[in-house]
């Protein structure tokens, strides 16, 4: 379970996060939605422990992470960053194996888990390819595999933080990436993902947090959050909710 209590964070020039409180329980997928610059990625970095809050606290399974070391935090949570440039040329398998740093020193168990994680991220068969030779979307999936590898086999009570996991992916692979996150939640992990695609959020999220100017506008189950009024307010553009036999879809028609 991951929880934030009255969390605030500022960069020297401006307040980015202002009094955010939310809680994502084991087995839940929560999605952060908001316009560019709303503070979604910064909130995720504070939740991960990388940025220290100005006020408030972040709890991982009830423990304040300000008192935990990087290693202790990493054994319970994994992060997929928005961008990840790998210096020097690892193979795909070696890159995925980097995820096991905090947990294991035994190469054999690292390798087995990394192979399984690559399969979960749809990168089976790419193990011996050079990371630098992959396309942007393939690199993204390898980084997702590295994060899944960091979660390990026992995923109950772990935390998975994903910053735009569908970025650079085609629709099929975007669904596959979110399905992998959903699987982690099914195994007992708490998942928080930053997304730009409201329909992807609708398909996979149990809860959605709408952010505007660093504040939570609404944090509730998907259907309650994804309304035309709220989304228009967040994105400053017209929004329509289209009902169909397969559920509902969010549409942003071009402004008149």
């Amino acid at each position: 379970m991951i929880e934030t209590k009255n969390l605030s964070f500022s960069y020297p020039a401006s307040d980015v996060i202002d009094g955010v409180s939310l809680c994502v329980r084991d087995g839940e997928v929560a999605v952060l939605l908001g316009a560019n610059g709303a503070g979604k990625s910064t909130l995720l970095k504070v939740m991960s422990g990388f940025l220290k809050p100005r006020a408030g606290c972040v709890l991982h399974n009830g423990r304040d992470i300000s008192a935990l070391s990087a290693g202790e935090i990493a054994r319970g949570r994994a992060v997929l960053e928005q961008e990840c440039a790998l210096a020097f040329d690892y193979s795909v398998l070696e890159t995925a194996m980097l995820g096991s740093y905090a947990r294991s020193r035994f190469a054999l168990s690292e390798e087995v888990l990394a192979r399984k994680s690559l399969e979960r991220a749809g990168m089976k068969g790419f193990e011996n390819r050079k990371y630098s030779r992959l396309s942007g979307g393939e690199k993204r999936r390898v980084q997702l595999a590295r994060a899944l590898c960091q979660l390990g086999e026992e995923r109950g009570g772990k935390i998975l933080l994903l910053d735009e996991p569908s970025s650079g992916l085609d629709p099929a692979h975007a669904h596959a990436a979110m399905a992998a996150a959903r699987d982690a939640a099914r195994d007992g992990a708490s998942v928080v993902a930053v997304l730009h695609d409201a329909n992807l959020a609708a398909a996979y999220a149990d809860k959605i947090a709408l952010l505007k100017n660093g504040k939570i506008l609404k944090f509730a189950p998907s259907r309650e959050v994804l309304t035309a009024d709220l989304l228009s307010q967040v994105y400053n553009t017209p929004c329509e909710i289209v009902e169909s036999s397969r559920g509902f879809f969010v549409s942003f028609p071009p402004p008149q």
Partner: protein
Amino acid sequence: MKSGKTIAVSALLGFLFLGLSAVFLCFGSSDISVRDIFSSLFFVSDNDTASLVLWQIRMPRLCAAIVAGSSLALAGAGMQSLFRNPLADPSITGVSSGAALGAVVAISFFSSIFALELGALILGLCAAAFVCAIGRVDSRVSALSTLLGGIAVNAFCGAVVGFLMYSVRDVGLRGFVFWSLGSLDRCGWGDIAASFALCVPAWFAMFFSARSLNVMLLGGEQAYHSGVNVERAWMLVIGAAAAMTASSVAICGVIGFVGLVVPHILRMTIGPDNRRLLPLSALAGASLVIFADIVSRAVSQTDPIPIGVITALIGAPFFVFLLRKRGNADD
């Protein structure tokens, strides 16, 4: 996986190291047969001259080459992984020139080898600490700022060493040239023991950091997410690299490009995994310095060329090649 290639490269480097060491011990200005050298090495020899030359001249020189070469290559490999940049090495990041300045200042006032080592270590670590301080931006470490800070420190220390060389004119010039260009001419067992005492803990610290360095290749933020204590890893690797460089400078002056060229070639061959790269860099670095000293003595046995000149003649064109190959790519 690369285990087969790593075994092959390890075996090749092992044979190269042993072969070059054997040539090194047998080759010199004294007219002593290979048989006498080997009998002095493995048995009690009745040839006192051979025994004296081997144990008092060539063996300490070989040990100095091994300590210096392996330390420089190991420091270079560690720093390249830490900075995520194949152009980082102790001579570029200011540690070498800081240590050289410390050594030059120490020999201006004291004659003891320990004072010299201490001078090299203190100013080498000061240079490293100063560069780390410059590299801190918004309470985080910036690789680019650190590297640029190192270039500034390098230029400053080089200027002071140059000024001291200019000030002493001919009298002490040769001694200062020794520190600037690198040579194994002055190594004795005392120097080696002092250097070894400093190097060994630094070697272990660097080997201990291999897994952290692997994850640091993802960048500081991702390394933190993966569980690396980034600040501690920086301090440990920079401190170990400074200690290794300072101890190398103390016994044989500044030898450039070993820390740049060796890890880079090996990385192209066996990949960037520091668990393989660090030990093999140490072995290859030692072999390169042994080879450079053989070449230096082959050119002129009475007045050998400083080995820093030979490693620079090999390394400088390679450095340019790396720059051209990298082009405008970001680090």
